[in-house]
Structures are given as structure tokens and as C-alpha cells.
């Protein structure tokens, strides 16, 4: 009973968190939800769009609202700006000679934190990129003979400029796969943009004084709870169908892998939780599919990129919407007389 209350509180807090971030990042509720989904699914997120759409601010705000400014219970936030001359050592850390102890001491790099903002990841050399991605996957760092585990809560928010930009090293498909979710930021709509211009001082103020809403423990607890979210067999079937369809679709060259499918399920559960539910519905399926799968697929052409996945998803939604799963789920009140 105590746990349930805790869950409801936590779910409440998620909502608060989203609201909190929204005071800074206006009109990006969906993107905020995706970020939290990746967080709760114990994954990492990649944000891509043109410069100046609010990627970095978003990451920073999120980090701050779960870490506070310098709180003990808060999460530890680090930020690395990726540049072409960055070296893996700059991320991982290096052995430094301790004059006192007369020995090499491992000086931990910025990776040893709770929330990592890897800004403009595609500007770094592939060497650095793979070092980061390796850590993200393994959750540990091996230097020489010693293996250093990363923090229990390790969440990477990577941002990148579109691949077409100059001076970038695009991430290969295999590495993109490491990110649970990839989202596009996009520009806000016109009314929101007007509001932003009118109130840019307020936003600045909000950004500076962001409050911690979720504690570390709560996040770890929610991560555990994510695993317990109920997912109906038919939804799992739908996930299977969608993943398989991506392999059969004539316009998709490279379909989704089995690992993608598992990631998909994890994200579904997390997304349900972010939306304040402890079960997965069609809405979650519709909400998350593109974010989870799109960057794992290689399309035959640009047109297919826009259409293929939508059509596959639409078909599954259509199937699900016509399923009769409510047998004996409703207990009848006798014909309502009390209205």
C-alpha cells in the first residue's frame, strides 16, 4: 500500500517535472515526455535539429530539475561540448602521477556523473563518439586492468546538428542503435514563438532558478517501476508485427532488429508511466513508435522516410482498435436509476 502511494506521488512528480521544464522550454511537451521516457527506460536520448531550437537548454533544464543546483540528494550533472579535437581521455579521465603517493592515480573524467549532456556529438571524431557510446552501452569504463563502474543512474542526452551540416562526423547506424530514442526538435508554432519573444526575460529567469522536482531515489524507484508496467499481449503482438513489417516493407532497406524490439517494449512501458498510467495502451504505441524506430531504419528514399512507418503503425492501430478485449471487464450496475 505504501508503494502504491509512492507510485502515485512519483507519477505526480513526473507531471510536475514536465510542467517545470515547460516553464523554460515552451511548446515542447512531447519532446520533454520523450526525454523522460528515455530516462525511465534506462536508456539514452539523441536530439537532433538545427542550432538554436533549444536542445541544449532542454538538456540543461532537465538535468537541473533532477539534480538541483548543488544538492547532495540531487543528480550529478556534467556537460561536454564535443569538438573535432576532443580525445577519449577527455571523456573517460586519465591516470595522473600523484606526487605524494608516488603512483598513478585515476582521475575520473566527466563520464562519471548521473546526467551527461553530450553537446553536438557529431562534431567529435568517431574515436570519441565510439568511446562515449561504448560507455553508454556497457555502463562501465575499463582503463588498463581496472574496471570502473559508472554511476547507478547514468543518463546521456546527446544533441547533434543535422547530418547535412559541414564539419560533422555522422553517427553510423550501429551506433545510433545505442540511443533508445531519437527526437527532432523542430521549431515551435507561431503563437508559442510570439509568447517566447514577449517573455524572454521571464524564461531566462526561470532557467536560472530552476527547482529540483525529483530526487535521485525517486528516479531510481521509477526506473524499477517501469519494469512492472503492465503490457497486454496484443500490444506485444503489435510490437512484433511492426518490427517485422519494417523488415518486409519494400521501401525500407534495413529493418528493425530484435534488440530494437526489446528497446521498443521498454520505451512503451516508460512512456505509459510518463503519461501517468501503469498500463500500455494504443496511445503509447502511437506516441513512441516513430521516436524509437525511425533512426534505426534505413529507407530507400526520402518519401518513404515520411510514409512507411506511419502506414505500418496505422495498420497496427487499426487492427488493435477493432479488437474485442473487454469481455467480462465491466461489471454491470443495474440500469442506472440514480441519475
Amino acid at each position: 500500500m505504501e508503494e502504491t502511494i509512492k507510485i502515485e506521488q512519483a507519477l505526480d512528480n513526473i507531471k510536475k517535472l514536465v510542467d517545470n521544464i515547460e516553464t523554460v522550454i515552451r511548446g515542447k511537451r512531447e519532446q520533454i515526455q520523450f526525454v523522460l521516457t528515455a530516462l525511465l527506460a534506462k536508456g539514452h536520448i539523441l536530439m537532433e535539429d538545427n542550432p538554436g531550437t533549444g536542445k541544449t537548454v532542454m538538456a540543461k533544464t532537465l538535468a537541473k530539475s533532477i539534480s538541483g543546483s548543488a544538492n547532495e540528494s540531487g543528480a550529478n550533472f556534467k556537460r561536454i561540448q564535443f569538438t573535432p579535437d576532443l580525445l577519449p581521455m577527455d571523456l573517460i579521465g586519465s591516470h595522473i602521477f600523484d606526487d605524494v603517493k608516488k603512483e598513478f592515480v585515476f582521475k575520473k573524467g566527466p563520464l562519471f556523473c548521473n546526467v551527461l549532456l553530450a553537446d553536438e556529438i557529431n562534431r567529435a571524431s568517431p574515436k570519441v563518439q565510439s568511446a562515449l557510446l561504448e560507455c553508454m552501452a556497457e555502463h562501465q569504463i575499463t582503463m588498463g586492468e581496472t574496471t570502473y563502474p559508472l554511476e547507478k543512474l547514468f543518463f546521456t542526452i546527446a544533441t547533434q546538428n543535422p547530418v547535412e551540416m559541414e564539419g560533422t562526423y555522422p553517427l553510423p547506424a550501429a551506433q545510433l542503435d545505442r540511443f533508445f530514442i531519437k527526437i527532432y526538435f523542430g521549431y515551435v508554432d507561431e503563437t508559442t514563438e510570439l509568447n517566447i519573444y514577449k517573455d524572454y526575460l521571464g524564461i531566462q529567469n526561470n532557467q536560472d532558478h530552476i527547482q529540483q522536482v525529483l530526487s535521485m531515489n525517486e528516479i531510481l524507484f521509477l526506473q524499477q517501476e517501469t519494469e512492472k508496467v503492465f503490457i497486454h499481449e496484443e500490444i506485444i503482438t503489435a510490437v512484433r508485427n511492426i518490427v517485422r513489417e519494417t523488415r518486409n516493407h519494400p521501401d525500407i532497406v534495413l529493418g528493425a532488429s530484435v534488440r530494437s524490439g526489446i528497446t521498443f517494449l521498454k520505451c512503451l512501458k516508460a512512456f505509459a508511466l510518463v503519461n501517468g498510467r501503469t498500463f500500455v495502451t494504443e496511445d503509447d504505441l502511437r506516441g513512441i513508435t516513430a521516436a524509437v524506430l525511425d533512426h534505426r531504419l534505413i529507407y530507400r528514399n526520402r518519401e518513404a522516410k515520411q510514409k512507411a512507418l506511419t502506414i505500418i503503425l496505422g495498420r497496427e492501430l487499426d487492427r488493435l482498435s477493432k479488437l474485442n478485449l473487454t469481455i467480462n471487464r465491466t461489471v454491470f450496475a443495474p440500469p442506472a436509476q440514480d441519475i
Partner: protein
Amino acid sequence: MPIGKVYSYKKMLAQLLLLAVPTAILFFYLLWDANLFYNILENNWISQGIYFSSGLFVAICFYSYRFRFFTTAFFVFLFCYSVYKLFGSLSFGEFDSFYLSIQFLIFSFLFSLGWLAGFGFSRSRYFTIAWCVLLLVSKIVVVSKTTDITVNALINAFVPVLAYTFYIIYTAELIRNMNEEEPRFAWFVTKRLAGFGLVILLLFFMIFSVFKNDFQAVEKEWGGSQAQNDKKGKDKSENMNKKDSKGNVSNKDQTKLTGSLSKDKQLVFVAKLDNYFDDGITANPLYFTAFYYTKFDTLTQTFERDSLVPHNDLFLPDPSRIPLYFSKTDSSVIKNTHATKSRKVVSADIYKVVLAPDAFLAPSTSFSCQPMSVPKEFKDQYKSSYRAKMWVSDLNSAYFIYNPAGNQQLQSFQEFRFNRLREIKKIKGPDKQFMDYYTFMPKDEEYKKISELAKQITANAPTPIDKMIAIRDYFLSKNEFGQPLFKYSDNPGIPGIPSANKLTYFLLENRKGYCAYFAGATLFMLRSLGIPSRIAAGYLTVDRSSKNPGWYWFYADQAHAWTQVYFQDYGWMDFDTTVPDVNTQQSPQPDGTPPMNIPQTYMVADGEITNVNVAKKQISLKIKKLLYHDKDYESPTATELTVDVSIATISADTGAVAISSLTKGMHITAVSYSEALKNILADKNDDLNSILKKLPAPVPVDEVKLFLKDEVKDQKKQEEAKAKEPIDWIKVMTRMLLTLAGLIILVFLSPWLIWLFMNAKAKGNNSDKAFHCYRASLYYLNQLGYSRNGKGPQQYATEVDANFGTSFIGFNNAYQKAKYSRQTLTDVEIKLLNNSYDNFIKSVRSHIPFKTRLSRFLNIYNTIHYFSQPKIS
């Protein structure tokens, strides 16, 4: 040329089995059918079919494996062309190489056709449709070129192609859309095809059973007795007579131009015609007319009767329905002939041998019919007889083309009558309608040719009769070799092209034919010259014996058609232009003795039987009509008369009957030749009753003629009429339209019917009520144009709420919870699920005006959209 996806062997196999094999079978059939009409140098349909199918099969196998069309087709055609050229340069005999190259040409044409079809089947999606349209159109073109439009021919021509069309379009699409990786591939295909076949079969049988009677009517109407010949695919011959089941003969009311005429040599009737030339001794034979064919159906090239003739002068009684010795007269016929000059009344006695009892034949223009009894000693030979009276022109005669040579009398008559007719420089009809009707000609290139020929022939003829003679002389003229230009033939054959105009073919090329060809050609030549004319059908009268002048014998092969021309004041005149057929002028057997000694009738009583005394052989009659000493008596009240039938012959139309078979209420005519009545004369003042009182009782009678009861006869007639009733296309069309309308309405209403079902389900109390409510709501919204269409349920619910001011989202959330979670629902949620449906529908309804709602709701596309799964790729 894009290279299509490579098919799996399964798909190829399916194409070979399900597309190529039926196509090959159809082509075997089509080629077989075509070979019935066209014969190409010993090339038979089997080898032609094999050529086509080999091309088809090879192409399908070939193109299923990524071969480019242009290169492969280029090589195939190059190969064909070079082989074809090779034949030309071969050194053996010229005919052999010609023969070979023709054969090869057929091979390469059919093979290429098959090749193209195979390519189309395996690569192009729309090919099947184009292919079927091509087949149908070519079939329609071929059929429209034939004149042989019988039901069987139509069914043979169209049903296979139509069935193939449905099948191939469906199957090609099925194969294209099937999932190659379906584990139970064969089952999938079989299932679909079986279902499809069942539906088509059902449809076919339904249509056939609904229109069965109509089909049969068409069969009877068009096919007639020739249907069997048609089936055998042998020559299609035409018979001028028709025979009923009892072997009775009568003239047909239409005559078709066909390839051959079948005739037999049976004696049909004997007639005594009371028409002589001025000297009173030399018999002047007249043709015996049954019908006038005033209409010509250009499509089927058939001469027909027309009931809408202006100034109808056809007298058509049924002799079997007129009481013995009582005559039926229609004087309006005389008026309608518009003939006033040189006319006289002539009578003819017709003795029927195999002529149908209800048939009436007489020289034109007959206006009266009086059935007579046949003398006793001839009873076996002649079934019945009647006397006809005609309004006959002095100038009319059977002699025109048929002219016994060297007959002085005849020559002077011809001179006389031609001179009289020459006085008419231009023919004027009684009115414009008459002229228009009888000078009508189809407007067509072919008929223009006839018209040109007619102008050429009659260039030097000033008057209508001269033109007529010129046409006759043209038919009798000889060619440069001294041979007759036109020959009589019962088997003229048909032109090579099925659609060709048979009359122009006859007139300009073949120059062989039977009477209908000559009459038809003459008719259109005359009409093109503005001379009103028509075709008469009946019997050719030949004066064969000088033994009994005025007596004529008519055999079945004398059934004839000839032209009649209208001259003002003189009326219709017979002109036969059919060149002599030697056979018909000699009788097949010596003519018998004519029935000459007709007894004098003193009394004829017509009435209903009231009592039959078999022992005394007496019959009591109630009579209203009496013929006494050639005078008619009639009375409105029936009078009783008893007659003695001990020496009488009792007969009906069908033959002799026994006295015991007479019963009360039967309609009979009693005839007496008794000498006892000879001297009992009637006074001027006598009426029917007073005469009967003078007669001895019972009156001895010699003959009793029994009439079939009216009802029985009427019934028979009705049955006949039913059987013969021409197919009522309007009825057929109405039925088809009704069926179609029903189907359309059903389709039209199907969205509503589905809604009724879903609504009922949603309102019911099932354990899955929530699902039914959700489905019904979704369907309802979908029909109104707010389809979910790939949206998430929550997003959709939000949109719906925004549009209609409903609280769908609450229901939706509860429903999603019920659907996808295992948590127990709260009471509020259960209430929502159970009770919000009605209000939701109401609220949606109130937001859309009725008109929009109706039009959107009944839109079938919305329904299809709802039920169809979105297609991937």
C-alpha cells in the same frame, strides 16, 4: 522498361496454372470457332491453339525471371522475320514455299500474340483489363458482321469470353496481391477461387433461371426448326413453308435470305380458279397469296409482315372457325385496294391436302371466305375446302416471266395489258404516307449500289411498267458467252464475309438465288425508282394441264415470293421476276382428278347441340343461323331443330368423329343435300322459324361438321401465342433494372444496415458492452467523416470532444483501461462505460445538420474505408 520484382516459383506456377491455362483453353475455343468461318490452307485450330499457347507459356516463364522485354522480343521477332525471309528464298516449288510461308505467318502471328499476352500477364497490372476489352471488342465486331443472330450463336460467342473476362481479371489481381510467403499458399488460392467460382455460378444460374422463358422464346422466335441445323454447324437453310407438329403446312410470315432453300415435293392443295381470258376458255392463272411482306429487316436480312401497313388490304380469315357454307366477308379490303378500273369478282375453290386447317390462301385481293364440304368420294384425299372470292384485276396474271412460248392468246394479252398500264406515266399513291411506306429504302452504300444498277437498267424505260419489264429483261438477259446472266438456285451460298449484304451480293456478284432474292432485288430496284412495291408470299401457280382448265395443283416446292407493284386505279399487280426453275414447272407426280361433283346444298343449320340420341341417330340443335337454298336466315332467338344423322358423315377439322363423341353444348353445322328438301321452297316473306316449320322432322342431313369448343380453341391459341410470343425486351429490361436497382439500394443502404447492427449490439447488455459501444461510436464517427485513421485513441477522443462538445475522452480512458490493463475498474469508470454511449451519439447527432449527416452517413466509401485494412506498400 522497369524490371519487375522477381516472382517466386510459386507465383509463376500460379500464373501458369490459373492464368495461362484458361487463356489457352479460351483461345482453342475461339480459334475453333473462327475456323468454322475461315479456312486457311489446311491450318487447323489445334495447331493454331498450340502456337498461341506455346508463346504464352514461354513468355510467362521467361518474364518471371527478369528478362528485359525489348531485347528478348527483338530477338524473337528477328528470328521470325529471318525464317520468314528464308522461306521466300527456298528453291522448291513456288506453291510449296507460299504454303509454308503462310503457315509460318500464322504461326508467328499467333506465337507473338501469345508472347505479348504472356508478357502482359507477368509484368503489367492493367494488361488483363486491356486484354479482356480487346477480346470482347473483337468478339463484338465479329458478331456484328454476321447475320446469324440466334440465341445459341450469341451465347456461344459471348458467354465464354465474358466468363473468361471476369475470371481473369479477378485471378490476376488475386495472384498479384497474394502473399508469397503464405505457408498454405495452395489452400489460400483454392479457397478464393472456389468462392469466386461459386458466386459466378450462382449469378449465372440466377440470371438463366430468371430469363429462361425469354431465352426459350427467343430460341423459338429466331431459331425455329433451323436450330438443330445450326447446332450441327452445317448449312443453314430456309424453308418457305412452316410445318406444325401434325404435318400441316402453311406459309411462314417471314422469309430470310439464307444460303440455301429446302423444299419438298408434297402436294399441299388443289384449287379451281374461275379466271379466264377474254375468250372465256383460256385459263388465266393467278398467284395465290398468303401474306404481304412489306417490311425488310436489314440487320437480319429478312422480309417480314408488318401490322402497321397503311391501307391494309390483307384479308386473313380462319376458315376452320367459319361455319360450313356460311361466308365471312370483309369489304373494307376492296376499298383499301383503291382499284376501280377493270376489276371483277372471281371465285376460287381451294381443297386442302396438307395445308393447315386455319390457313387461308387466295389470289389477291380476296375479301370473302366460305368453307365448303368436300364431296364424299374425295374425303380421303382432301381434308377441307373453302371458296374464296377475290377482287381481281383483268390485267393481272401469273404470266410475266413465266411465259409458255408460242401462245398467241397470251402474247396478245400481254401486249394489251402492258399498253393499258403504259398509260400511267407516273405512279401516284392514294396519299403521301402510302408512297413513303412503299418506297422506303434503307440508306446504306450497299443499297445505293442497287439503286445505281436500277437506274442503269431502266435508263430507256419511260413508264413504270416499262421499267418493270426492263428489270425482268435484265434478269433474263444473257452474258457475253451466251449464258443466262441469272440462274435459279436453291443453294446460292452466302457471301464470304458474313455481314455482307446478300442482295447486292446476289445482284452484282453471285447472280444465283431463289425467289426471295429475285423478289427482294426487284423490290429495292423498284423502290429506288420511286415505284411503290411490296413482296407477296404464297404459291406460284402453274397451268400444267389442259385437261381441266382452271384447275391447279400446288406442291410444297411451289411456295414462292414475288413482287407486287401498285398502279393507281388498277391496284396491286403481281410481277414475278424469278427466272424459271425448270423443276417447279413439271409436277413431281401426275396431277390427280379434281373434286368436281359438288353436291347441291339445300340446307345448312348452324347451332349448338341440345340433345343427342345415339340409338335413333338423331340430334337436336338450337339454331340461330340457317342457310336455305342459298339464302341466309338469321334470328336473334334460338330455334329447336331435330336432324337425322343416320347417313351423315360427322367430321371435325382434324378428321372423322363418331356420333357418340357428340355431347350437349357442342357447336356443329349440319348440311343437307337431301332431295326431299329440293322442292320445299322458301317464300319471300319467310323467316327462319317459318322455314323450319315447313321442313320434315327430323330433317335428314348428309354432313355434320363439328367445331372445337371455343374455349378449348382459345386456350390452344393462347398457348400458341404464349409459346410464340416474341421476347419482350421491355419486360426483360424492367426485370434487369429492378434487380439492379435492388442491388444498388442494398449497397446504398448497407452503411445504415451495418449501423443498425452495431447500434443494437451497443445497446444490448453483453459482457463486452464497452467494446460494442466503442466500436459503434467509432463507426458512427467514421460514417460522418471523422475517421480515426491511424490516430491514437486519446488524440482521437480529444479531437472528437473538441468537435462535438462531448465527453468522449472520459469514456475512452475508461475503455482503454478496461481493454489493456488488469486493474479493477472503479465504479465511476464502469458507469461511464455503461451509460455514456447514448448521450454521446445524441450529442454528435445534434452537432451535424440532418442533410449533411444523411449524405455522409450513406456514403459507402466511408464504410469500405472503415472495414478495409490500410495497405502496406
